[in-house]
Structure formats: structure tokens, C-alpha cells
């Protein structure tokens, strides 16, 4: 990988991470902090978009370097496993086991399904 592309992917990840802070804060002020719905929205929407971008790249409808910048960089930095996992463990520590299960397994099922939808949409275009 050439250095310029590497830097572009990394910086796109920075933009994704800042977008995550912004969107999560926006959701928190609207919904409140009882259930960490912001991270769920971020991870499921990011998974849908990555499925779509990956499908486009597999069908050669998107150049590989754009797939890296948008997929590995922007969407990789936008979505996060560590915060989702932390919020799940905190819910379990508060004995909110149903909420912890929804945040752990529910988010995973929703994100994988969303990725599948994204892939299917891109394959339909090819």
C-alpha cells in the first residue's frame, strides 16, 4: 500500500471516530443515557454501509482504494467494538441483564443482518 493511501485510510478513520462522538452525543441529548442506543445506531448503520461498500467492491463497481478509505477507514473508525462491549459490561454490573443481552447479542444480530442487506443491495446493482 502506498503511503498516501495509508494516511488517507487512517485520516478517514479519524473522521469516522469524530462522527461517532457527534452522533452519539446527539442521540444522548434526545433520548437520554438510560440505554446506550447511540452506539447501537452507529454500529448497525456502519455495518449496513460497509456491507454495501464491500458488495460494490466485490462487483468491481467501486475502486479498491475507495473501498479501503470508506470501508476500512471511515466506517471502521465510525463503528466500535470496545465501547459497545464496555456499555454491555456496565449494564450487567448494574444487574440490567436484559439490557446487557440486548446490547451484546441483539446489536450483533442486527449488525450482521444489516451487513447482509447492504451486501444484497450491492449485489442486486451488479
Amino acid at each position, binding site marked *: 500500500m502506498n503511503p498516501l493511501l*495509508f494516511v488517507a485510510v487512517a485520516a478517514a*478513520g479519524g473522521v469516522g*471516530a469524530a462522527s461517532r*462522538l457527534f452522533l452519539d452525543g446527539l442521540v444522548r441529548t434526545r433520548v437520554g443515557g438510560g440505554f446506550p442506543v447511540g452506539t447501537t445506531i452507529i454500529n448497525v448503520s456502519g455495518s449496513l454501509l460497509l*456491507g454495501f461498500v464491500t458488495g460494490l467492491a466485490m462487483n468491481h463497481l467501486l475502486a479498491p482504494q475507495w473501498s479501503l478509505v470508506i470501508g476500512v477507514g471511515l*466506517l471502521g473508525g465510525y463503528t466500535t*467494538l470496545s465501547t459497545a*462491549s464496555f456499555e454491555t459490561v456496565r449494564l450487567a454490573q448494574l444487574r440490567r441483564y436484559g439490557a446487557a443481552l440486548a446490547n451484546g447479542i441483539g446489536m450483533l444480530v442486527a449488525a450482521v443482518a444489516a451487513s447482509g442487506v447492504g451486501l444484497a443491495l450491492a449485489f442486486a446493482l451488479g
Partner: protein
Amino acid sequence: MPRAVHLRWRYLGLVFIGGTVGTGLREGLTLMLPPITLDAGARLPLTTMAINLIGALLLGLLLEALVRRGLDVGRRRTVRLLLGTGALGGFTTYSALATDSALLVHSGAVGAALAYALGTVLLGGLATWLGIVMGAALHRRTQGGTASAAGENA
């Protein structure tokens, strides 16, 4: 009243810098240790899994250590946004976990998809918990304090 964290350029900038470094590290590691290709042509991204587990442990450690030191203000907030939300948030990823799992299902490797996806989330929870315990122990060793951090959020 001060503006909310997510509306301040300084904080968005800290997360951008951290996220750039975290994403660069994830990308570098993935380039050095590419995913394993299965018979069906699907990829088993063990590097992504390791990145997510290490990041989960470190975030648990960081946030627990920070919350035990005091309120989320000043230097503690700077460290949380730069290293936690930014670097570790950008280092770990959920979209790749979901898409690689969906691709494994698509290629017929349903067992591998389940093991990869559930394995990451369950071991990720364990790693986070371990990190929190380590963060608490670290705080006790350096401060001798026992303040509870329950209820605080990232």
C-alpha cells in the same frame, strides 16, 4: 452552561487525532497479519478479532482507571476522548466484524460465522471485564482509594 462535548471543536479534534492513530494501527496490523482464507474462499479475520479483544481490554482498563480518579473534566476528559473514544474506538471496529460474518454466512461457512461473531462479542465482554478489574487494581495500587465507579458511562 458550557456547550456539550460533542458540539465542541476541541473535543471533536481530539477524537479525530486519536481515531486517526487507532485506525492507522488497525490497518497496519491487518496488512502485516492478513486474514486466513478458508476452503470456501471466505476469510477468517483473526487479526480483526485480536484487535477488537485487545482494544476492549484496554478501554475497560482506561475508563475504570479514569472514573476512579475523579470527575470527567480537564485532563481526564482529554485523555478519555483522545485515547478512549478516539484511539481505542478507531482501533476496534464493529462494521468489519458484522460484514465478515455476513460474508462467511454467504459462503456457507455458517459455523465459522457463528464462532467468529459470538466469539468476538463474548470474549470481548470478558476482556472488557478483565480490563475494568485491572483498572480498579491499578487505581488501588497507585492511590489506595476504593471509590465505586458503578453507573458511570463512557
